[in-house]
């Protein structure tokens, strides 16, 4: 996914002279083709996240569209005030591309796990937050970033994740993608959790439980209308996120449903990571499993919850 995103930046830059690339201290060879073909718009600025964001803001004030890329944790925690003031307050078209969203860097421990990035960024006015489900979806979203007003945070997954998006479903920033119409259960997921939601839905289908799946790649601005329309059809809504359940996508969905569903509210369950630092290493997969985010965990919770309300 990262490669597809970086290639997308390169392709955009070839046709749009406003597009710049700014890295901190990325791996050797990152976007060499960009550096070769457009060296004046390629910046590798060192481990200076606060400065990089301010510099990107200054460039954006002069008409550029800077894509800033580094690890999601450092891109969101270290320079939060610069993002809030320099970028969001000025409503500038700076694109923040965070590598290793969620538990991708599980083996590296809590310093490298971006598990509250969505919460802190979606709370900033003017910010757009995008969590693509797979590389194909990333590729479909990239051209839209050239014209989208204001800042965007793009949370990248590990890469080589299963492809769940397709050309059959509209892929548009700000628009929820309904992959399966809601049944008695509705899963709302983003990032790598979309694949798990689909697998859990298949398991439920085996038990003759109808289950919808929404790929909510854009957490902000939230497609409230689609969420409400689908949630009205379901008895249970379960959100699935590779993020703590404090303030992330699940919270955003819950807020939207509570604020906008008048007279009827389905049972809402939010599955995600606990409010703690996760330091049991292993892999992204093992970390997700140990926190109950495998498809069979999800399906089991849905079935159990359905039994309790019927």
């Amino acid at each position, binding site marked *: 996914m990262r490669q597809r995103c970086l290639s997308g930046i390169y392709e955009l830059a070839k046709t749009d002279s406003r597009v710049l690339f700014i890295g901190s201290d990325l791996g050797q060879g990152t976007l060499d083709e960009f550096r070769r073909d457009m060296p004046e718009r390629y910046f590798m600025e060192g481990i200076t996240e606060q400065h990089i964001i301010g510099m990107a803001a200054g460039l954006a004030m002069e008409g550029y569209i800077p894509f800033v890329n580094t690890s999601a944790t450092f891109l969101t925690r270290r320079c939060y005030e610069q993002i809030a*003031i320099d970028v969001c307050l000025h409503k500038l078209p700076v694109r923040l591309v965070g590598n290793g969203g969620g538990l991708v860097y599980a083996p590296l421990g809590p310093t490298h796990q971006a598990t509250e990035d969505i919460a802190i960024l979606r709370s900033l006015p003017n910010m757009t937050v995008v969590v693509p489900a797979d590389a194909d979806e990333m590729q479909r979203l990239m051209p839209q970033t050239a014209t989208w007003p204001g800042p965007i945070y793009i949370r990248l997954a590990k890469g080589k994740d299963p492809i769940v998006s397709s050309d059959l479903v509209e892929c548009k920033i700000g628009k929820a993608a309904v992959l399966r119409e809601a049944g008695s259960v509705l899963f709302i997921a983003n990032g790598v959790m979309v694949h798990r939601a689909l697998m859990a839905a298949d398991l439920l289908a085996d038990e003759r439980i109808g289950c919808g799946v929404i790929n909510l790649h854009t957490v902000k601005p939230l497609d409230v209308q689609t969420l409400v329309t689908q949630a009205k059809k379901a008895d249970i809504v379960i959100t699935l996120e590779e993020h703590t359940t404090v303030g992330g996508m699940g919270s955003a969905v819950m807020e939207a449903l509570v604020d906008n569903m008048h007279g009827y509210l389905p049972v809402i369950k939010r599955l995600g990571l606990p409010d703690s630092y996760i330091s049991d290493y292993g892999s992204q997969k093992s970390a997700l499993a140990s926190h109950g985010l495998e498809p069979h965990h999800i399906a089991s919770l849905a079935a159990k919850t359905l039994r309790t309300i019927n």
Partner: protein
Amino acid sequence: MQSEIPQLAAGKATTTSMDERSKHLRRLVITALQGADRGHIGPSLSLIEILRVLYDSFLNYDPAHPRWPLRDRCILSKGHGCLALYAILADKGFFPQEELSNFCAKGAILGGNPEANKVPGVEASTGALGHGLSIGVGMALAANLQKRPSKVVVITGDGEINEGSIWEAAMSAAKHQLGNLTVVVDYNKLQSYSTTKEVLDLDPMADKWQSFGFAVQEVDGHDVNALQQVFAAIPQQSTKPNAVICHTVTGKGFPFAENDPAWHHKSYFSPEQIEKMYRALEMYP
């Protein structure tokens, strides 16, 4: 590098006299203070001559067209010194002087920190310290990319450069050889709590900037002629960013406020205190 102005580097107050124009700009500050009944007085008054010289003789701009693309950019990174910026911008006609009386009023364009989307002539919203130099680096890079002659000036406080982000930006400015960028340090030796010496010593200030790759000049920040000469000496074509360290006095112009941390920010002024400010200016040598 030894400071060329040892008595200033030692933190003593300058006794530089003030002409009528400097007094006029300070009267505009009092106008705003009266309206809001509050303000960062000390750190604004140390800026008056710096801003006066920048806007009178260094910066290229058009008050009727504040977003003119070829203008020079000036960012007041120490946003809390905005009373001085508002005074000079009003004086230059970026907005009517009557706006000063609405300082901090509900719905006014002039707040306790400057906002770019509200105030004509304000390039960036500042107030959170340590941000302006990075924005200035971005603007200077943009000027080079767009082959514009625009100069970029960033005015920082001294306490402000406690922030690590300033030094990140300084390294970047030198890396990119931004000769079109000038950082102006309002070195008044006082921050909110106490002296910079006590809170976090910044000396040797000039050596720091020089070692970060800047061409450094030091000047009495209240001496109009000296400031003019220093800014005039900044080369048009250079591969080094510039630092102008201005030795200044907080509260300059009001002897009772000079170098007094209690005047960093003040609220609630009696008519007698306001009168005392005006009278102090009349009496100032």
